[in-house]
């Protein structure tokens, strides 16, 4: 594992962010069930794919363009748990949107996390545009768009990949393929098995990676980023993953998938797998793990308390930021 640049410290840090994300996620759902958050989304199950990819980037400098599924990603990219909770609870100081957007609509200018709306696949095009500017300005940045496999049916996915390939832009298209678009299974979404199969038709590499393995994900993203920075153009990466809980707090996944299927998938829970692996490699000890779990508990509690005490937006601010100037 040494030659990929991942030190034990970095791997522990990866694990920390995966576990932190899972804990934050669990907390958000509790807040929802308690009626304190009208709606929440989840990254439960996607943590390895997201954290692995984040660590392969020049965090805070490269652009990431997340979607609502990407809690673990933005945490690994530098958003603090307090910031996340301010967002989830729609507080005035939410750096993502000042409480304007639904939870999980990320955006953090200082961290180079692009603001996202709800319309799927638009960020694929934005990432391409960020990369176009990077190419022209020679700023050395790579842009990464994150998206679900369902969203690849959108025309804008296609337009983005085509444009990026023609102009050999420093952009990575990172697909989190969890097999479902809300209730629609991927066989009703596309007639091929793999999203990556589309890459060839655009003239870019298409890479499939085990989304439950953060190290593998780290490696392929690193390679794609290197390629992008060398001026060799975009890469489409498909991380095979699974969403362990419903699409959002408004969803009920029992309508469209069996409990057996979910249980089966959970056998490959990336958090548990990575924990075992780190322990096996002697990187993570029981003691360290306990310490980390306590730390995470504290951090999540702190973030929740902090956000719950934070003020809601002043209604008068409704009119702010429509335009820069009129």
């Amino acid at each position, binding site marked *: 594992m040494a030659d990929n640049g991942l030190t034990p410290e970095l791997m522990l840090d990866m694990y920390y962010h995966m576990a932190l994300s899972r804990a934050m996620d669990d907390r958000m759902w509790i807040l929802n069930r308690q009626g304190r958050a009208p709606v929440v989304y989840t990254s439960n199950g996607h943590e390895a794919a997201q954290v692995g990819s984040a660590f392969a980037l020049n965090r805070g400098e490269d652009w990431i363009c997340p979607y609502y599924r990407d809690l673990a990603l933005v945490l690994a990219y530098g958003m603090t748990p307090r910031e996340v909770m301010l967002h989830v609870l729609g507080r005035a100081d939410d750096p993502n949107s000042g409480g304007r957007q*639904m939870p999980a609509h990320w955006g953090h200018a200082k961290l180079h996390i692009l603001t996202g709306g709800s*319309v*799927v696949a638009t960020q694929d095009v934005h990432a391409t545009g960020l990369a176009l500017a990077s190419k022209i300005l020679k700023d050395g940045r790579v842009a990464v768009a994150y998206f679900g496999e369902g969203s690849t*049916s959108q025309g804008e996915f296609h337009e983005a990949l085509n444009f990026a390939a023609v102009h050999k832009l420093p952009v990575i298209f990172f697909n989190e393929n969890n097999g479902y678009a809300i*209730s*629609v299974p991927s066989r*009703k979404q596309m007639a091929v098995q793999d999203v990556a199969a589309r890459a060839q038709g655009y003239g870019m590499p298409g890479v499939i990676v085990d989304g439950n393995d953060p190290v593998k994900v780290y490696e392929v993203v690193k390679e794609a980023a290197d390629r992008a920075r060398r001026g060799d153009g975009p890469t489409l990466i498909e991380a095979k993953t699974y969403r362990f809980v419903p699409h959002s707090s408004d969803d009920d996944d029992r309508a469209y998938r069996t409990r057996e299927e979910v249980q089966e998938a959970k056998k490959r829970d990336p958090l548990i797998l990575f924990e075992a692996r780190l322990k096996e490699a002697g990187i993570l000890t029981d003691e360290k793990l306990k310490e980390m779990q306590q730390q995470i508990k504290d951090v999540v509690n702190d973030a929740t308390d902090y956000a719950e005490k934070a003020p*809601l*937006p002043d209604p008068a601010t409704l009119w702010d930021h429509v335009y820069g100037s009129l």
Partner: protein
Amino acid sequence: MAVLSYLEAIRETLRQEMRRDPRIIIYGEDVGVRGGVFRVTEGLQKEFGEERVIDSPLAEAAIVGTAIGAAINGLRPIPEIQFADFIFPAMNQIIQEAARIRYRSNGAFHVPLVIRAPFGGGVHGALYHSQSVEAFFAHVPGLKVVIPSTPYDAKGLLAAAIEDEDPVLYFEHKAAYRSVKGEVPEERYLIPIGKADVKKPGRDVSIITYGLMVNYSLRAAEELEKEGISCEVLDLRSMRPLDVEAILETAKKTGKVLIVHEDNLTGGIGGEVSALIAEHALFYLDAPIVRLAGPDVPAMPYSPPLEHAFMISPEKIRDKARELAQF
């Protein structure tokens, strides 16, 4: 007569229509197995099969565009856009294709198509699950746009939309889905598209509105009644074509017009309604034509204080109508 919710009225109408006409198919994202994210189409796939209730790929241009093709080749498709906010990728198909096909082919082709979409706010949907998009389509000749305010109207307008030989956008207010209930006859009936409905007659002020705001306006009118102010509430029902006659009639009757909609003020339906009155009933007016509408900010924010500040409420309507009555 059965009392149904707004949502149930839509579902039962879809069911009744599909039983009546085998050419009807429904499709969209999650409409099949899941029965739609709001469960409007729940049970329909079970009854009519996977071929008539189709879980489509996540692609609105394809949903509407293939429906156009299917309509031309003999079906009566009722595609669903999961949220009205997500209709923009299909704008090109709706405006450039569906709306113009009859005209550009000199009547040789036409597109009987009903596009259903939930719209509107007040449900913590934030910027992208709260939008009112009717004004974009009401501007387009070749399209029809209807918005029911009650379960009764929901049924009659949906049946009429399905019966229509041209593309109809049928917007459903998501805050009305479960909160608005009413009697709905079992048998099929049509409410003509393009006809407004006086939901409450009155003398002093005309409130012209549509959708959920009809319900809010009725509440406001009820309160004002106690104060001795008599409001007429005109439910437009159809944003295109507008019922010009009914609009002018109520304006002439009361001489004071308040137009209410949740959509952003500028460029909304209200401007058109006001302009019709200002051109054709100007000298009947006793007061300026007033519009009460969503503020001119890009879309409805999430956080409760902001959402509340954005939304039109019965109180806001009452206050404006009172002001106008006292003018």
